[in-house]
């Protein structure tokens, strides 16, 4: 039952990813004028339904496991996708910029795909980690990641739009991308949101270490260092913007670098380095 629900969620996310990409790819071309709104609508509904299904799945999985599921890759990537979708839906609610979905929903789909490929696996959570600290810490961190991914989406939109404007030969027909100003400012706000969430997540995490003495803790944990690097990349970007007014293309590139840093922290560290944060 729960597996079937998961498969369904995966398929809906696949549809959402495909329709989101399609609605951008066909652009505002004439032939597409009639069908594009429909495609966009389908994509958005797929996103909403997929998000609802994923929420139910995580809740059921939680009940079945008896604790907040955050031990195996399957738990973590599903939660990652959930966080990305949540942040995306909040942004759509606030700005009505559905185009962002064409950039972030494929990422969410890949996360679910990874999760699904491990779906039958479970891993025991050590007793001392089973508490609300885990929930608070990981939720904050994953929402921060999701905000960074939204910033990355805006960065890409900025770069594409800027390229079109600078190349000049492009017609003014495709008005799907927001103005440079909009992408730039929203990307910046997402980065700030991410930094706030990440900072809170790290603080919660370090407070948590004060409470667990049974699990060996080392400050030079690969994940901790990598997270700090990511944090500095975003804080640096925000600081430079405030101080010297760096924005636009440079800020967009910074969100791309930040995206790579997030991926390294999230996936890379687990695969190549040893860390106490490792998923099994």
């Amino acid at each position, binding site marked *: 039952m729960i597996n079937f629900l998961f498969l369904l969620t995966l398929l809906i996310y696949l549809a959402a990813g495909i329709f989101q990409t399609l609605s951008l790819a066909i652009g505002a071309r*004439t032939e597409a004028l009639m069908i594009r709104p429909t495609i966009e609508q389908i994509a958005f509904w797929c996103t909403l339904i997929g998000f609802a299904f994923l929420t139910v799945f995580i809740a059921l999985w939680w009940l079945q496991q008896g604790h907040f599921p955050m031990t195996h890759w399957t738990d973590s990537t599903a939660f990652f996708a959930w966080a990305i979708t949540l942040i995306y839906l909040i942004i759509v609610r606030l700005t009505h910029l559905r185009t962002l979905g064409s950039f972030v929903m494929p990422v969410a789909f890949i996360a679910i795909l990874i999760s699904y490929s491990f779906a039958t696996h479970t891993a025991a959570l050590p007793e001392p980690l089973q508490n609300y600290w885990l929930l608070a810490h990981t939720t904050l961190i994953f929402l921060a990641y999701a905000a960074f991914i939204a910033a990355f989406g805006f960065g890409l939109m900025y770069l594409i739009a800027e390229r079109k404007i600078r190349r000049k030969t492009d017609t003014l027909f495709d008005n799907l991308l927001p*103005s440079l100003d909009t992408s730039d400012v929203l990307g910046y706000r997402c980065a700030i949101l991410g930094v706030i969430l990440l900072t809170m997540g790290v603080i919660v995490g370090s407070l948590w270490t004060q409470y667990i003495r049974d699990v060996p803790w080392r400050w030079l944990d690969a994940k901790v260092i990598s997270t700090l690097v990511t944090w500095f990349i975003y804080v640096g970007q925000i600081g430079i913007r405030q101080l010297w007014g*760096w924005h636009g*293309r440079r800020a967009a590139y910074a969100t791309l670098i930040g995206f790579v840093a997030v991926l390294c922290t999230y996936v890379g560290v687990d695969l190549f380095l040893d860390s106490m944060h490792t998923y099994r």
Partner: protein
Amino acid sequence: MNQLVSIGTSHHVAPIEFRERLAFSEEQLIESHQYVRESDQIQESVILSTCNRVEVYAVLNSVRTPEAAAKVLAEFLSRCHQIDTESLKKWTYLHHNLETIQHLFRVISSLDSMVVGESQILGQVKDAYDTSRAAGSTGTILNRLFTKAFNVGKRIRSETTITTGAVSISYAAVELAKKIFNTLEGKTVAIIGAGEMSELTAKHLVANGVSNVIVANRTYQRAVKVAEKFKGTPLAYDSDLNFLIDADIVISSTNAPDYLIKRQPLVNIMRKRKHRYMFLIDIAVPRDIEPDVSKLDSAFLYNIDDLEAVVVSNLKDRQQEAIHAEQIVSEEAKRFYDQLQVFQVNPTIKALHQQFRQIADTELQACLYKTTLSDAQEEAIASMTQAIVKKLLHHPMKNLRGAVNDGDADHGQYVQALQELFVLDVNDETPE
């Protein structure tokens, strides 16, 4: 059978000298509506008179051939404007039935306009129709036709992109600015030098929300003169370009032989304005702005050729779109024409049915009055008469409707013949 016809002239076929002679002033409109109401040949009419076209759409009564229709309309026009029929023949076009519908749909969709996709024509036709309707010159057919035409106009504007994409340099500049800035509200535009094009562009920008205008000129008096038009700030400049610190959009069109805005000074200015975006439009020839400026991160430079290229490409897109729009027009015109035929034949069919039934009824009553029959027998005879009427009318009606649906031009004659042979009193104004 009524004929739907139109006569008209437009920038496609006639020079301005002729169009202005044909244009209707307000008094002339009132007069001609008066004339239409008194005329027994012109049943309905709508007069459209804009600077690019003058057209009369009319429904004519008791006119059988297109030639006769042309004569009626030509007489009408020459009466209104004292124009000899020779020049009318030379400079006007005449449309008949389906062509009229098609033409009106094309006009309203701006496919017949000087700039395909322009939006004014829809309102102009609407005004013309409202005036004619208020004057009591329209009836069922033109009311239907124009209601349909407005729908077609809207459909084409929503289902094709003929109206999108700037087709003038000044609008292209506005659209580009909107792609860079989140909003134009609160933005500042600086006009350097003077010129029609830069003023027009500034006007469009202000209409789209730009709130501050700086007008810079070598001579202060000139700057003041232009600034008055926009309630802007005039200023004289020599080599100091510091006023650009506040400018989000710069339009330059001076006669300077050298570059006025060079890269290095602009770097400093950009730093002072904290690298907020600057959109520079260079419409001067020779150019005013060093091309290298476009390499700055927050500066976007378009020269006259770039804007021209945008316009040309948009125009090409509109042409492409127009093909699509023409298809919709033909489709809709054909469909409306068919509906109109059916609509026009219906009253005749109805009248014929009524007459037959009435005769049958009268005869039945007379017959029953003379005899004594049981209820069942009476009923049998009544239903028999009904059946006879139905069967008698079956083939004529089937063939008439068939002729209409096949687009057979003869069906008008059928209707005429039926009306005359059976002395039918057909009321054309019967609503559905």
